[in-house]
C-alpha cells in the first residue's frame, strides 16, 4: 500500500506547498510598513463592485508595473524576505548579477555599481556661476567602488572617478576652492582603515573625520584633535546596500559615534520642514540606533533645511549637500557659530537670497560623486 502511493510524492509536495502558502497568505498577520524597503506595503484590496469592473481591484492585488506599484499578494507574501534573499543568492551562484544594482564584493562588502554622469557638465557650470556670488568650496566624496577597487568581483565595470576628478580640476573656475578628497580617501584606505561601510553606501565616521581634517586647510579652521572625542560603538548596523541587494546573509556593520567629551557645549539643532521648526539639543538622534539602518542617527537623515548653532564658536557656513555630509557636519559644528545645511533635492528657494538674509558668505558644497554626477536638484542653485 505504502509503495503504491509513494510514487505520487511529487504531486503531494506540490499540493502541500501550494495550499500551505494559500492559507498563510490569508491568515498571517500583515505588516503595514517594510523597514527594509522603507516604504508602506500595499493596502488591503477594496473588494467593491466598482473597483472590480474598473480593473482597479486586479491592480491592487497583482500590482501595477506601469504605475510602479507592487501588489498586495507579493507585498504580503509569507516568508517574503527569505524568498527575496534566496533569489539573490541563487542568481549570485550563477554569476547572474547583471540585473542587480550592487556588486557582491570581497570580505562582505556590498558595493553600489558604477554611476553614469548625465549631470556632470551642468553641475560644474552651475557651481562656476554660483562662485561669482559667494565664496564657494567644493568637495566630492569618491565612490566606494573606486576606492575599494581591489574588493570588487572580477566581472565589474570601471568606475569613472578618476576621469570625473580630473575634469573637476580642469573645468572648475579659479573662484571655486576645491578640496580633493579622492587622494584623502585612497590614502585613508591604504593606511588600513575602512572608509566605507560594508552594508551601506555611506562613508564611516573616521573617514568623515579624515575629510574634516583635510577641509580645514581649505576652509581655514583648526580641526579638533581626534583624542578630544569620546567614541562609542553601535553594533548590528544593516544599511541600504544590505536591504536593497537582497544579500541577507551579510554580516552587519558597526557604527561609530564620535562625540565631544563635554556634553555641555550647548550645540542646538533646528530642523525646518515646510512651515514647521523643531529644535533639538543634540546632533545625534539616538532613536535611529535601534533601527536596522542606523545612519540617520546623524542629524536625523535628509531634511530640506537644518541649522546647527554653537554658542562657543564664531562664523557662519552654508552647507549644500547630500547625506554624506551628515557624518561630517557634526565635526564642523565645533568650528562654526552657525551652520545652515540645505538639501537641494528638497530645498526649492533661492539660495543667494537665503545667504543674504542669514548673513552668510562662505559656502561648502559636499556631495558623493554618484549624486554629483546625476542629481538634478543642484541646477536650481542660484
Amino acid at each position, binding site marked *: 500500500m505504502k509503495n503504491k502511493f*509513494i*510514487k*505520487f*510524492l*511529487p*504531486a503531494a*509536495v*506540490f*499540493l502541500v*506547498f*501550494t*495550499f500551505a*502558502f*494559500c492559507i498563510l*497568505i490569508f491568515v498571517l498577520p500583515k505588516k503595514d510598513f517594510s523597514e527594509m524597503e522603507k516604504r508602506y506595503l500595499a493596502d488591503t484590496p477594496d473588494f467593491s463592485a466598482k473597483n*472590480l*469592473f474598473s*480593473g482597479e481591484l*486586479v491592480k491592487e*492585488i*497583482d*500590482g501595477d*508595473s506601469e504605475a510602479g506599484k*507592487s*501588489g498586495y*499578494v*507579493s507585498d504580503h*507574501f509569507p516568508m*517574503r524576505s527569505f*524568498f*527575496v534573499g*534566496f*533569489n*539573490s543568492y*541563487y542568481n549570485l551562484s*550563477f*554569476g*547572474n*548579477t*547583471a*540585473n542587480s544594482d550592487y556588486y557582491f564584493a570581497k570580505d562582505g562588502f556590498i558595493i553600489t555599481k558604477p554611476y553614469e554622469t548625465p549631470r556632470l557638465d551642468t553641475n560644474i557650470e552651475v557651481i562656476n556661476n554660483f562662485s561669482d556670488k559667494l565664496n564657494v568650496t567644493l568637495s566630492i566624496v569618491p565612490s566606494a567602488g573606486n576606492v575599494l577597487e581591489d574588493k570588487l568581483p572580477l*566581472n*565589474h*565595470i*570601471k568606475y569613472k572617478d578618476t576621469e570625473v576628478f580630473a575634469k573637476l580640476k580642469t573645468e572648475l573656475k579659479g573662484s571655486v576652492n576645491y578640496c580633493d578628497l579622492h587622494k584623502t580617501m585612497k590614502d585613508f584606505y591604504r593606511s588600513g582603515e575602512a572608509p566605507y561601510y560594508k552594508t551601506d553606501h555611506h562613508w564611516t565616521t573616521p573617514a568623515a573625520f579624515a575629510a574634516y581634517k583635510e577641509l580645514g586647510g581649505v576652509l581655514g579652521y583648526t580641526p579638533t584633535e581626534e583624542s578630544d572625542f569620546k567614541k562609542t560603538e553601535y553594533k548590528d548596523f544593516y544599511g541600504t546596500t544590505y536591504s536593497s541587494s*537582497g544579500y541577507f546573509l551579510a554580516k552587519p556593520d558597526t557604527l561609530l559615534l564620535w562625540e565631544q567629551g563635554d556634553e555641555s557645549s550647548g550645540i542646538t539643532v533646528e530642523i525646518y520642514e515646510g512651515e514647521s521648526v523643531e529644535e533639538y539639543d543634540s546632533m545625534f538622534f539616538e532613536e535611529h540606533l535601534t533601527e536596522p539602518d542606523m545612519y540617520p542617527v546623524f542629524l536625523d537623515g535628509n531634511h530640506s533645511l537644518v541649522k546647527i548653532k554653537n554658542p562657543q564658536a564664531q562664523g557662519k557656513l552654508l552647507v549644500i549637500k547630500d547625506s554624506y555630509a551628515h557624518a561630517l557636519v557634526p565635526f564642523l559644528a565645533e568650528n562654526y557659530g552657525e551652520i545652515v545645511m540645505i538639501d537641494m533635492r528638497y530645498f526649492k528657494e533661492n539660495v543667494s537670497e537665503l545667504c543674504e538674509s542669514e548673513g552668510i558668505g562662505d559656502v561648502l558644497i559636499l556631495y558623493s560623486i554618484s549624486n554629483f554626477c546625476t542629481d538634478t536638484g543642484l541646477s536650481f542653485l542660484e
Partner: protein
Amino acid sequence: MVFSSLTFWFIYLPLVLVLYYVTPKKARNIVLFLVSLAFYGWGEPVYISLMLITILINYIAGYLISKSQSKKKLWLILSVVLNLSFLVFFKYSGMIVSTLNLLPFINISFSAPALPIGISFYTFQAMSYTIDVYREECSVQKNPLVLGTYVTLFPQLIAGPIVRYTDVETQLTKRKETLEKFKSGVLLFLAGMGKKVLLANQFALMYKNLSETGDGFGVLASWAGLLALTLQIYFDFSGYSDMARGLGRMIGFEFMVNFNYPYISRSITEFWRRWHISLSTWFRDYVYIPLGGNRKGFKRQIFNLFIVWLLTGLWHGASYNFVLWGLYFFVILACEKLFLSKILNKAPKAVGHIYSIVLIMLGWAIFSFDNMSELTAFLGSLFGAQGVVATEAQASVMLSYLPICLAGCVLSTPLIKVLYEKVRNAKYAVLLETAFCIVIMLLCTASLVSESYNPFIYFRF
C-alpha cells in the same frame, strides 16, 4: 491572469482545484466554465461579454449547420465572417486605419480598442468547431455549456495550444481524472513554470540590460542580444504551453504537444513542424488544404503557401514587421521546396543545423522590432554597422549571463528528456521528481516574490 504570477499559483489554482474536485463529476463543466470566465475577466471584466458572444455565435452556427443540409454553407460563411470581424475589429482596426491614413486624402481619427487577451487563440478554437461540424468531422454540441467550457477552458485560453474541438470532444463529457495524470500534470506545470520564470524572464532581462547600456550594439553584443531574444521567445511560449498541458492534466484533460524542440531542426520546413504545432496544423487544415494544398499544381501550391504565411505573420500581431516575418518564412520555405532541401539533405548535418538556427534567429529580429528603423539599425549592428565588438558594460552583462545562456542552449535540446526517459521507471525516479518539484517551486516562488517584473510577451496576440 497569467500562470506565472503569485495570484494564479497560490490563490486561483488552489481555489479551482478545491471547487473542481468537491463538485460531483456531472457538474464539473459548470465549475470549469465559471472559473475560466473569472480567469479571463481578471483585469478586463468587460471582455467576458465578448467571449460569451463568440460562444453563442458558434453554438448557433453549429446548430443551424447540422439542421439544414441546403443552407449549411451560408451559415458557415456567416459564422466565419462574424468570428473574423471580431478579430479584425479588436486586433487589426488600428493597423488598418493607420495604413489608410497614409493616403493623402484620408484622415480618419480613430482610437483602437484595447486588445482582449487571447482573442487570436480562442477565435481560432471556436472556428475549428463550427468548420468541423460543417465538414461533418464531429457532431453538433447541443449543450451550450459544454461548448462554452471548450472555448473558455482556462489552461489554454490565452496562449494555446490551440486545441481543436475534435481532439477534446470526448474529453469534454467523458474524462477521467486520475492520480497518475495529476502527478504528471504537476511535473509538466512546474517544468513550464521553470521555463518561463527561471529562463525566459532572465533572457528578457539579459536583452534589456544589453540594449540599455546606451552606446549602441557591437557585433558580439547584438548577436548575444539576439540569442537572448531567441531563447526568451522559445522558453516563454513553450513554457506557457507546458503549463497549459500540465494544468489540463490536473483536471483530466490531455492537450496536444505544441513544441517539439524546434531549435534542433535541420531545415526551416522541419522547424515549422516543431514550432507552435497547434497553429501550423490549424493553418494547414483550415487554410492550406481547403485552398488546394499541393494538389493543384506547383504554381498554385506556392500561391497557397504565400497566403498561409501572410496570414501566419499577421496572426502574430497587428504590425507590418509580422507580415514581413511571415513572408520571410514564405520565401525560405518556397526555396526549400524548390531546391534547398535537396542540397541540405546531402550536406553534413551541421550545415543544416547552422543554416536553420541562423535563419530562425534573424527571423526573431524581424519579429521583435515593430519599428522599421529600429529593425534596420539592429540588423545592421549584427553585421558590424555600429563599430565596436561590445562595450565594456555589454561585455560585463554578457559574461554575467553566460552560464544561463549555456543552460538555455542545452535545455533547448531533448537531452534532459532522453535522460529522464532512461530513469523514469527506476525506483529512485520518484525521489528525483520530488527533488525537481521542490527546487523549481522554491526558485520560482523566490523569483516571483522578488520581481514585480514579469513581462509576458505573448500578450499582444
